[in-house]
């Protein structure tokens, strides 16, 4: 019988490798195949990042990579004004904000590299609290990047955000997959970017689509009912006025339209004795 002795270092290394592998799979799963130049760019950077992470997963190294990635993204943005326009469009539509605010949270450095590069502001506690955010030093050697319009995060946060809801759902998924909490943000951003790109195609990014809201039908229905009630009231008053002008006796209708005036009509009243119910409970 051969005993396999595994020391703690080996276990750590194995866990690290498994962890990196999980991240790599997750990242690959959410990024579309490189059909476009941008897709290839992202995938190359993902591979590069995780190869580097494979050598060392020291947190300090990770931060360094993040800053370097952000700088690369900024440099790319400077070189490619068209991509900035795309990023601006994305930011404008979806409040995703392709900006330096996102660079700090973008280890891949794809900020400003195109629509997907418009790294989101969501999930950042500093932004959510409305505090100023430290900006990463951008390596700008050429002409300055055209300014990108960013919505005020405080205003953004005052409205219900479907992105926040989505991020919460994704966080639950990530926990289930065993991803460490400190890795959430990076992966979550990638996942949300993917979702956001799909929503952007549908031009629904700026708000939660009505069809996804469970109360949408009820809300529309109640709005229409309110308008119908207003119409009915108006018509009844006009009828009464017309009768009065003709010198007739003003007669009310025998009934009011119940679907408009009595929303709860038709619900059967249940007769019950509370004492009986209490006795049953006892």
């Amino acid at each position, binding site marked *: 019988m051969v005993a396999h002795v595994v020391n703690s270092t080996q276990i750590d290394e194995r866990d690290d490798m498994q962890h990196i592998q999980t991240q790599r799979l997750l990242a690959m799963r959410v990024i579309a195949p490189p059909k476009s130049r941008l897709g290839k760019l992202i995938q190359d950077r993902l591979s590069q990042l995780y190869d580097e992470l494979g050598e060392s997963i020291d947190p300090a190294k990770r931060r360094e990579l993040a800053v370097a990635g952000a700088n690369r993204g900024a440099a790319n943005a400077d070189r490619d004004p068209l991509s900035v326009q795309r990023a601006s469009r994305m930011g404008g539509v979806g409040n995703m904000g392709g900006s330096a605010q996102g660079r700090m949270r973008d280890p891949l450095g794809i900020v400003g590299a195109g629509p997907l590069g418009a790294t989101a502001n969501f999930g950042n506690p500093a932004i959510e609290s409305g505090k100023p955010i430290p900006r990463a030093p951008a390596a700008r050697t050429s002409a300055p990047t055209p300014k990108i319009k960013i919505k005020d995060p405080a205003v953004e946060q005052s409205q219900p955000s479907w992105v926040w809801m989505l991020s919460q759902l994704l966080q639950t998924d990530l926990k289930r997959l065993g991803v460490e909490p400190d890795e959430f943000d990076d992966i979550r951003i990638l996942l949300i970017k993917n979702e956001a790109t799909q929503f952007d195609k549908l031009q629904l990014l700026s708000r939660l689509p009505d069809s996804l809201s469970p109360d949408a*039908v009820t809300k529309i*229905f109640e709005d*229409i009912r309110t308008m119908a009630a207003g*119409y*009915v009231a108006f*018509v009844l008053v006009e009828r009464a006025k017309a009768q009065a002008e003709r010198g007739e006796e003003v007669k009310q209708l025998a009934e009011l*339209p*119940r*679907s408009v005036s009595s929303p709860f009509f038709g619900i059967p009243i249940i007769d019950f004795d509370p004492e009986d119910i209490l006795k049953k409970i006892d």
Partner: protein
Amino acid sequence: MLPVKDRYDEVFEIEIDGWVFGLANYPGEISAQVLHRIIRELATSFHLAIEHNVVFNILHIAHRFSESARFLVHEQELAMAIVAQLPNPATLEEDQQLVLGLIIDQVEQAYPGALASFYNRWKIGKKAA
């Protein structure tokens, strides 16, 4: 033709006008779900109309609803939805059964087979009752 009780035809007309006004003036898109919800809400009014001997025109109501919803839902679908909300003839008195027959007959002429599709349903309802 049976006389209308309590001028309910006027009430019913105002009611339908009100819903059509709401639908036509709603700024957003009207989905089929919303229209079906309105028709379900009108079920009580259909019952009352029949009780008051009002022979209302289902096709006309369906057309108005469809028109006010920018024809996003076909009027045949709406007509069938309205027929589905009508009471089971077995639960009605003789006069009201006649009124119901006149109402359904209009739909049957426009869309042959409408009555047959609901006949089984009413049959099942009668057994259950």
